[in-house]
């Protein structure tokens, strides 16, 4: 008997017992649905992490003064000696695995242009900062190393700042005041969006770190060439650990940490913290994977149960088909096809439900909806396999019926 005829018979049987079929399919629906949700949510979360990492800057290492514990300083304890421009220069010169190194400080300060007034984050940074952050200017130009060395009063505006102060007109060539100090606007930054920590990176202004220290953050700077943070970009991602060790060696020597003594600074791989924050979502994925596996098995048992009922109900039909010339394998295939059709229908409903739930979750968690074709194919194939596996026993039983007894069955 050909497949098409079997499928048609199966669809008729399915429709006649619509509610019963739906209930039997429930396990498969939930199973496939949770597979879709699990995989899509975790790949969406993964893509979000990748985007965040790309946003921070690829292969980014950060250096801070102090120890890594971030415990509050105890009374009488001396503050750790700050990082300086000389540390930045040393890293740049002595660690060959780094392609760019930048000192960094940040403070909130009011910004004035004409009558417009806007308080925003002022970043003082080296010229390498944009490269380290994989950031570029949309309009105008960035400042150079020479301008940093000279302490020139130039500023790069974030997109949001530009919008707040200048609206639709171009800010290039205008002068804004930060605090009381006038700065020439030489560029507007590309839109960067939200940072991995949730702050709006477009609501910032970048100025040379030398200028910032001398003109803006003066009273708070303890050492003349202090930097709050050093950002460094490694050339290759797989050298990150080696480069990190080299940086630690250089800084330990410069800061005279005794051998075996505790570092008074720490170097961190910026992607680590992003990964750590997203660990929960991968654990959730694991939980869902377990649910999906269990539901598929439970769903399969549901299918098996309903198929056994169907075989009993249709014993006379089986006997008749045998009398009319159906071979055992025709009967077996018919019930197998029916189980597979049942499971596939459940799988497709589960697929639709899973996509729907994924979209809702993705919207709530603000990560992209990633539904890969392979997972759709996989879930459809797995529901067909479940049908085949759990349909086999009932189908086999049907095919082994004695035609005489089956025909007499009431």
């Amino acid at each position, binding site marked *: *008997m050909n497949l098409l005829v079997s499928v048609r018979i199966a669809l008729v*049987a399915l429709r006649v017992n619509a509610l019963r079929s739906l209930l039997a399919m429930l396990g498969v629906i939930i199973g496939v649905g949770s597979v879709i949700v699990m995989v899509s949510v975790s790949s969406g979360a993964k893509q979000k992490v990748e985007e965040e990492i790309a946003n921070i800057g690829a292969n980014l290492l950060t250096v801070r003064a102090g120890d890594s514990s971030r415990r509050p300083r105890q009374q009488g304890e001396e503050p750790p000696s700050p990082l300086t421009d000389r540390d930045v220069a040393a890293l740049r010169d002595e660690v060959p695995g780094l392609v760019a190194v930048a000192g960094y400080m940040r403070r909130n300060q009011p910004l004035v242009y004409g009558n417009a007034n806007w308080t925003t984050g002022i970043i003082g940074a080296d010229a390498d900062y944009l490269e380290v952050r994989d950031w570029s200017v949309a309009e105008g130009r960035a400042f150079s190393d020479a301008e940093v060395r000279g302490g020139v009063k130039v500023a790069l505006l974030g997109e949001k700042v530009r919008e707040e102060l200048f609206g639709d007109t171009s800010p290039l060539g205008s002068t804004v005041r930060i605090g009381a100090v006038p700065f020439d606007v030489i560029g507007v930054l590309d839109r960067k969006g939200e940072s991995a920590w949730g702050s709006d990176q477009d609501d910032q202004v970048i100025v040379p770190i030398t200028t910032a220290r001398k003109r803006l953050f003066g009273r708070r700077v303890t050492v003349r060439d202090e930097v709050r943070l050093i950002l460094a970009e490694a050339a290759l991602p797989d050298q990150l650990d080696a480069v990190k060790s080299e940086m630690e060696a250089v800084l330990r020597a410069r800061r005279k940490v005794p051998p075996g003594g505790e570092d008074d600074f720490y170097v961190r791989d910026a992607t680590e913290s992003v990964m750590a924050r997203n660990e929960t979502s991968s654990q959730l994925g694991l939980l869902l994977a377990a649910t999906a596996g269990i539901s598929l098995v439970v769903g399969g048992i549901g299918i098996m149960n309903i198929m056994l009922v169907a075989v009993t109900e249709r014993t*006379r039909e089986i006997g008749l088909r*045998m*009398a*009319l*010339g*159906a071979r*055992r394998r025709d009967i077996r295939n018919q019930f197998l096809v029916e189980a597979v059709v049942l499971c596939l229908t459940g799988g497709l409903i589960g697929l639709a439900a899973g996509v729907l739930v994924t979209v809702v979750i993705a919207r709530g968690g603000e990560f992209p909806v990633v539904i890969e074709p392979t997972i759709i194919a996989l879930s459809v194939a797995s529901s067909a396999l479940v049908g085949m596996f759990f349909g086999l026993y009932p189908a086999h039983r049907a095919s082994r019926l004695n035609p005489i007894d089956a*025909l007499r069955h009431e």
Partner: protein
Amino acid sequence: MAAATALIRAEDVHKTYQMGETEVAALRGVSLAVEAGAYVAVMGPSGSGKSTFMNLLGALDVPSAGRLTVDGSDLGGLGADALAAFRNRAIGFVFQQFNLLPRTTALHNVELPLVYAGIGAAERRRRATESLERVGLADRMDHHPAQLSGGQQQRVAIARALVNRPSILLADEPTGALDSQTSGEIMAIFDALNRDGITVVLVTHEAEIAACARRRLVFHDGRLAEDSAAAPSETTP
């Protein structure tokens, strides 16, 4: 020799069933021959072995001992698939309860044996239509069994039995569920089919139905008790 033309040839056929611990002998040595084109009524009280004999004849079961040859096939030597193929090709079944599939049209019911014969959709449709025309139901092809009267349902069943051009029509109490007028109509169809050359074997306990047949086989206690024709092919060489 006339025996060579016998469509059905039974030689000392036995059938025993295992019922738990005990063996039940349903047939205890039946020998007979039926030539092609015969019209045979099989009678006997329940437990006489007539149903068992019909099951063997219809290749739904195989003899425990003896030889049963139908339409050139020695049924005792056939496996399950070969028996199914034989039923499909050589036998047309008509049942007391019609046994139509309830959720499919008359046409699809009639097509069913052709599905198992592996015949394509267009040819199936053509032959099923032809078969339904033969029993006078051309205008009811798209009806479901529930929309048909008992007599019409049995006519669909006969059309289904005929559709694969079997050598033998096996009817088990074909009028048992019908009123007498409808029974007459159904028997008229059997008569007409037999006149066209189809061998008809029908089980009945009603004498007037049996009277339609030209030969009467009466079973009793697992043996052939009476053969009205005394099988001419057996007696006259």
